[in-house]
Structures are given as structure tokens and as C-alpha cells.
């Protein structure tokens, strides 16, 4: 579960947040806080509540309970609803669909929020030019949204959000509509903007690679709860639950269910580890990283038989996937296996399991 330390200087502090839609509880009880300047990524499968959380941060939806505070000031609460004054909230949202107003030019789209905020014409023009230059789209100034490409629309959407200089930037899966190459380009672009503006950012995605590369803080969400919260490396190295362990990492790690037999924890008939690791439990799940699995038998190591499924080259090494009794195992090895799909192969496990989890999913220390 999330470990939250609340400090006075938090840029975003979420306390006991609840969101219900009728009878359905999307977010049961969520607390989280990040310091100014951080880049918080909310990651999780679709339907995990990450977009619901973001919409509440943006002030588009009201929480059913709990409180959201920006820079120490409460901006939304279950009791008081949304405190709508955007000056006080001082946050901007980049929509997944970009939501560019089709009847305004690029400059018009960027200028309108400034107009609403009461900027005078000269200040608006200067700022429009500034953000357009920052995103490298000055030439598109007088085009309509329908006349520019998807990647350019994306940049305009970001420019529009940046223009009023919000202290908090919110992103709702902003890269999901771009092709793979543009996505990588925009990823570094967004990180550059984050560094340049210093705005605290909250970024929603279901892509764990985006989460791992961009975040200073990651919150892995599942069914409306924060499964784990912390810096990306910490999550990768010490997953708190089986959900986090199998959600993060490329390829994902392997979970082997084991039962206690005497002094050993066995998977099928193969003893894998001493039963002390399970801390007295009769059943547990052992977590092995792909690089802990090797091809073929090795002296003194437990061996698993599996049915070869596929092999894919990966940064000079080979990712081998095989199935055994309903489980999919992924291994990173040095050589392509001499096997065709469906052939039996043998995996050997090296070292102690990286982590041990209870059958209910939580980590056993």
C-alpha cells in the first residue's frame, strides 16, 4: 500500500479521496502527495481509476469525499465540492483528444484562455509567440486545427495548456494517439518542457515504459487503489505486490506458485527454495526476473520443463517465452534456442527468488 508522508510544502496533496458514481465506487480511499517540481505518473490498466483521479485534480469532477490540496490550499473536497476559481487552482490539462476548438486558429486556441484570464492584447501576443516558439510550431500560427497533422495538434494542445503558466500541468494519455516514432519524440519533448517550466506535472498513461522513463514519482493504480507509490527505480526493484511486479518491466517478471513440502517450496514436483522464505505459509508465489532464467540444464539448479512458444531478439540478447501448465515464462538468454514452437525445452532457475509474495498478492519480507 501507498506510504504517504504529508509535508507542508507539497505541491499536490490528496487525502482520503473517494469517488462514487451512483452505486459504483471508482476510488474507495486514496491518499498521495508529491513535492513541487515533481513529475507524477499515474499508471495502470484501463478502468483502474487513473483518469477519474486526473479529472478530479483538474476540477472537472467533484470528489465524493476527501480532499485535494494544491500548494497547501484546498481546491476540491467532498464537503465543499470543486472550488472552481481557476486562478487559485492554477492547473492546466492536456486532453487525450487534444480538444482543440475547431473554429479558432492555432493562435486563437492559445489566446482564448489568456483572454478569459484577462490578459491584455500585447501580453497575449507575446505569450502566444513564446509558447509557439517553445514548441517549434510558430509557422502554424494562423492555421485551423483541421489543417494540421495529429502531431502538430498535440503540440498546439500543449502550447495552449502552457500559455497561462499553470503551476500544475495535467496530462491525460497525451501520446496515445500518436504513432510510435512521434511518441518517443514527444516524450523527450514533454520532459524538456517539464524541466523548462518547472511545473509540477501529473501524467496519466497505461504505458509502463512512459511511466518508467518520465516519472520522478510513479503511482501504480489498480481498481481505484494505489498499489504502490514511489520513484520508478524503487518500484522496479522492490515491487510491493504481484500486480506491480507483473505490470512493470520489459519483459514482465515470472511468478511461480509454490506449496510447502517439508523444508522446501515446490512448484509441481520441483523444489525451488527453502520453506523459510514463505514465513510459515503453506503456499506462496516466487518472483523470478527474466534474467534469472537460463536455457537448458545447469548443475545444482532447479529445472522447469516448458513448451517453447517464441523467441525475439532484444538489445543483443534473446527473449524466450515458453508455457508450462497455464503459466507463461519469459527468459532473457544469450542464444537463440534450437527449438520450434511446441517443442519441449528446459529452463533452469538461478539464484534465490527476487521476491516472495503471498497468494493474496502482498510481498512477504
Amino acid at each position, binding site marked *: 500500500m501507498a506510504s504517504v508522508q504529508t509535508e507542508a510544502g507539497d505541491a499536490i496533496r490528496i487525502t482520503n479521496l473517494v469517488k462514487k458514481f451512483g452505486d459504483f465506487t471508482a476510488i474507495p480511499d486514496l491518499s498521495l502527495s508529491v513535492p513541487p517540481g515533481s513529475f507524477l505518473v499515474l499508471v495502470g490498466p484501463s478502468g483502474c481509476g487513473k483518469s477519474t483521479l486526473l479529472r478530479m485534480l*483538474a*476540477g*472537472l469532477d467533484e470528489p465524493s469525499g476527501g480532499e485535494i490540496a494544491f500548494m497547501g490550499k484546498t481546491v476540491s473536497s467532498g464537503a465543499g465540492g470543486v472550488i*472552481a*476559481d*481557476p*486562478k487559485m487552482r492554477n*492547473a*492546466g*490539462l492536456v*486532453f*487525450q*483528444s*487534444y*480538444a*482543440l*476548438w*475547431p*473554429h*479558432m486558429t492555432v493562435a486563437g486556441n492559445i489566446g*482564448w*484562455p489568456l483572454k*478569459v*484570464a484577462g490578459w491584455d492584447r500585447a501580453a497575449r501576443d507575446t505569450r502566444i509567440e513564446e509558447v509557439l516558439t517553445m514548441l517549434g510550431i510558430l509557422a502554424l500560427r494562423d492555421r*485551423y*486545427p*483541421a*489543417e494540421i497533422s495529429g502531431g502538430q*495538434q498535440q503540440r498546439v494542445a500543449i502550447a*495552449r495548456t502552457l500559455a*497561462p503558466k499553470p503551476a500544475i500541468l495535467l496530462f491525460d494519455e497525451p501520446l496515445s494517439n500518436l504513432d510510435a516514432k512521434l511518441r518517443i519524440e514527444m516524450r523527450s519533448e514533454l520532459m524538456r518542457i517539464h524541466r523548462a517550466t518547472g511545473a509540477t506535472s501529473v501524467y496519466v498513461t497505461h504505458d509502463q515504459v512512459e511511466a518508467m522513463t518520465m516519472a520522478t514519482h510513479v503511482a501504480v493504480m489498480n481498481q481505484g487503489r494505489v498499489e504502490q507509490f514511489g520513484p520508478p527505480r524503487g518500484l522496479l526493484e522492490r515491487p510491493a505486490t504481484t500486480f506491480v511486479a507483473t505490470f512493470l518491466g520489459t519483459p514482465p517478471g515470472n511468478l511461480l506458485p509454490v506449496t510447502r513440502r517439508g523444508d522446501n517450496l515446490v512448484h509441481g514436483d520441483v523444489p525451488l527454495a527453502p520453506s523459510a522464505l514463505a514465513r510459515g505459509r503453506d503456499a506462496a508465489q516466487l518472483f523470478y526476473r527474466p534474467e534469472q532464467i537460463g536455457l537448458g540444464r545447469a548443475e545444482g539448479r532447479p529445472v522447469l520443463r516448458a513448451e517453447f512458444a517464441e523467441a525475439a531478439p532484444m538489445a543483443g540478447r534473446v527473449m524466450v517465452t515458453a508455457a508450462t501448465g497455464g503459466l507463461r515464462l519469459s527468459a532473457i538468454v544469450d542464444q537463440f534456442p534450437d527449438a520450434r514452437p511446441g517443442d519441449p525445452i528446459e529452463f533452469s532457475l538461478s539464484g534465490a527468488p527476487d521476491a516472495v509474495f503471498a497468494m493474496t498478492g502482498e510481498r512477504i519480507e
Partner: protein
Amino acid sequence: MSPSDTAAPFRRRRLTAARLVPLSMILIVGLLVLAPLLRILLATLTPPGLEAWTAILASPMSPNLWWRPLMNTLILGLGVSAGCLLLGGFTAWLVVMTDVPGRRILGVMHTLPFMIPSFAAALAWGTLFRNSRMGGSSGFFEANGFIVPDWLAWGIVPVLIVLIAHYYSLAFTIIAAALSSVGADLVEAAQMTGARRPRIFFGIVLPVVTPALVSAASLTLAGAVANFAAPALLGLPVRMQTLSTRLFGMIEIGQAERGFVLALLLIAVSGVFLFLSDRLVSGRRAFVTVTGKGGRTRRFPLGRWRWPLFAAGFGLAVVTTVVPVVVLVASSLAPQAGALFSNWTLHFWIGEGGGQIAQGTAGIFRNPVLIAALFNTLKLGVVVALISMLLGLALAHTITRNKGTVLANILSQLAFLPLLIPSIAFAAAYIALFGAPLGPLPSLYGTFTLLVIAAAAHNLPYAVQAGRSVLGQIATDLEESARLTGAGPLRRMWAIIFPLAIRGLLAGAILVFVKMVRDLSLVVLLFSATSPVLSMVAYRYAAEGFMQFANAITVLILVICLAASLIAQALQTRVQKWKE
């Protein structure tokens, strides 16, 4: 296609063949659409034609023949379009943008008035509001002791009301479609800037739907300007003339040239407005397709106004759909207009002639003229639907296959020309072309054939549109993937193309059928005693004061239209189960 790439000798022949099809298509469409228009123009350039121009535009008669009808036409056009924008805009906003209860039902109900022909609404109005000024039986309200002033019984006010009640649902359909394309994201993005509701409405929502508003205004205006039934039934008795009733009157009394001149002027009037509105929304400001995924719409909470506004929306729908139909049905059953809901009798439907009621006229199902008209109507509907769809499919195919060429552009422009021409003026043009023997052709005036040709030509835009959507549904890769399985052309046609096309073809055919069955303004000039159709017979009865018969026939027309739509829906779900 490989043959043309590899076999060079065939290229030249293929090219000429490829040109031949669009050229012959242009010839056919030209004959159907352009020739009548040129002929009517030429007919007004002969000595009697030029005389007619002077008589209408610059003579002591011209206030009567041209200026007053023009004024009435413009008042109707502008009034109807303003009324439709207000009602259609309000209902569309209510259904799409708010949390009003029963939105789905309201949405369906507001599309219905346009399905009911305008002469049905006009007849229902007459049944309720007629006063005794014109002689004959008085309407429901006067018979029950209310005093109905002349301005409410006859003339421009009732015509305005009837036409607004008819056309507002067209405006509703267009505006609702545009409003639902304003995604929630657009509104939310504006909300994030801190803009208040009115500012979001005027700054974002309204500009985005402006093109739809303009086109709704221009289409309802063109419809009102061209409408014949309502002014003829409610205006003519007090000598309120519009351009279309004037045009009809001129041709009726044999002043063909004057009629032709008025037809040209009517085309010009409606053309000017359509052109202006097109200029207004064309170019880069025509952002019809809104970017982003506009799936979700943001509903404004109405609070305590929910139920009052629901009542307003629901009441409007009831008054414009349920009330006219109920009045027509009741009136076709009640011997006295003052007692719509008592002494019901089936006399006007199946009664034998010679009795006390209705001056001894037999019920409509005993009337051989009417039976003939019923079959004529069905025949006309089916024949025109089939011919239009075949022609439309052929044209659409030719246009898409020759996309980008000059010929294809000419063809599609020609095919959409009838859309700009009021149907009564179009009928006048057909009389100009086929009213006299044309080369080897005998005079077709008054024949069923002429009616079919004119109707098919006038429905061409709808048919081509339907044909295009049919072809658009069948992406070429669908057929190609079937070809890779080794299926022959016939088998592909049967297993792939036909099932995919049938829905569009059916929908198009039914649309044309329904349009024909309830059409009055096109048939009113081309009709003759030998080929009567239902709407025309109803109009004649109404003009002679036999309201119950007219109403009974109108009910019959409504039933046919409804049945056709229901059959079409049933067939569609039967043949395309995956669409459910």
C-alpha cells in the same frame, strides 16, 4: 488493375470506353435535368414569353402577379426559417446538451413532424380553425362557440404556423447532429480556463455549430419558399398568393408563359438564398468535422427547470405530430366538424353513396377514382423508387470511379442540381419541355410516364447520395479479400457486396418511395385525370370543401408512409443482423 498496366494495346480502347460511360451518363442526366431548365428559359424568350416577362415585372398587373406573391413568399421564407431556428435550436439544445428527462423519446418525437406531409398539417389546421367566412362547414373551434378571427383561420399566419410546425424538425435534426459533435472535451477545455457558462456557450459551442445553424436556416427557408400545399389550402381561399401558388394558377388557366416566367423567378429567389448561405459557411470556416473523439457530451444540469422544459419540449412534439394525426383520423370518422369525437361513422371510408351525409358521395374505398389513385400512387412510388435507385447507383459508381476528372465533377454537379430547384418549378420546366410533341416523341403532358421521368429526375440528388453511401460502405479491400479466397465475381456479388449494399439501397428506395407518396407540389402540375394520385385527390377534395374525404385520404397516405418505413426497418434488421 493489371490489364491496363501490362497490356498496352488495350489502353487506348479502354480509355475511350472509360470516357464513354461518364459521357453517356452526362447525356442522360443532362436530358433529365438540364434540358427542361433550358427549355423553360427558351420558352420565355419567344415573343409571347417576352410579353409574359413584361406582364409580370412591369405592367399594372405586376403587383398582383409578382410583387405581392414575392412579398408573401419572402415573409414566409424568412419567418419560417427564423421560427425553425428558434424551435429546432431549442429542442436540439434540450435533447443533446441538457439532462432533460426522456431525452431519447424527445429526440425521436422531434424528428417526426418532417415525416408528416405539410398538407396533412394544413388540413388538420383547417379542420380545427376554419371559420364560416368562406362558406362551407366551420371548423372545430367555431362550431364549439369560439370566435376564430380571419387572420387565424386563413392567410399568412396559419401558413407560417403550419410550415414552422413542419420544418422545425428538419432544423432540429441538423442542429442536434452538430451539437452532439461538440465533444465534452471542447467544453471542458474551456471550463479549465475558468470561463463561465455564457462565455463557453457564446465563445465555443455557438461558433462550432454556426455552419449547422446557417444550413438549417437556408434549407428551411428554401423549403418554405417552395412549399405549395400549405399556402394553397390555407392562403388561396383569401387570395393570399405566393410565387408557387401563382405559378400553379397561371398554368391552370392556360397562361403557360407567365407560369414559366414565375417558375424561373421562383428558382432565382430560392437560388439566391441557398447561394448566400453556401458562401457564408464555405471555405476554411466550414469546420464541419470536429477533431477529437466527440463521443461523450457534457450535459448541463437544468435543476428545477428540468420538468418545465421537458413539458415544453414534449408539448411541442405532441402539438406538431400527435395532434394533427389525431385530428385527421377523428375528422375522417366524424360527420360534423364541430363534434370530432362523437357519432363516429366509417361512412367516409367505406359508406355507400346516396345517403344523407356528404351530399351522397360514397366512402373513399367505394370510390373507383380513389382506388385507381391508390394503385397509381403505389405504382408511382415503386417505379420511381426503383428507377431512381438504379440511376443513382449507376451515377454514384461512375462518379466514384472517375473521381477527380472533369467529367465526374460535371456529373456530380448536374446530379445535385434538382436539389436547388423548387419542385413545382421543376414540374413547370417539364411541362415546357414535354408539353408539346418533341421530335419523334408525342406530347407526354398528363401521362404517367412524364410523372415518372420528372419524379425520377427530381429525386436524383437523394438517389445519388444513397448510391454513394452504398458504395462507400463497400471498401475495395473487402471485395479484394473475397477475391483472394478464390470466389468468382457472381459469388462475391452475392455473398459480399449485396449484403453490404442492401441496407443503403433499401433505405434510399424507401426514402424516395415515401417522398413520392406524400408529394403534392411536383404532381400537382403533372397530374391528369387519367393518372390521379392520392395526394392530388385529397387536394381536390379539400379545395371543394369535402374535408372528411381529404382527411381520410391523408390518413391513408400517412399509413402507407409509416408502413413503408416500418417494413424498411424490419427488413434492415433481418438482413443485417450484425448491426443490432
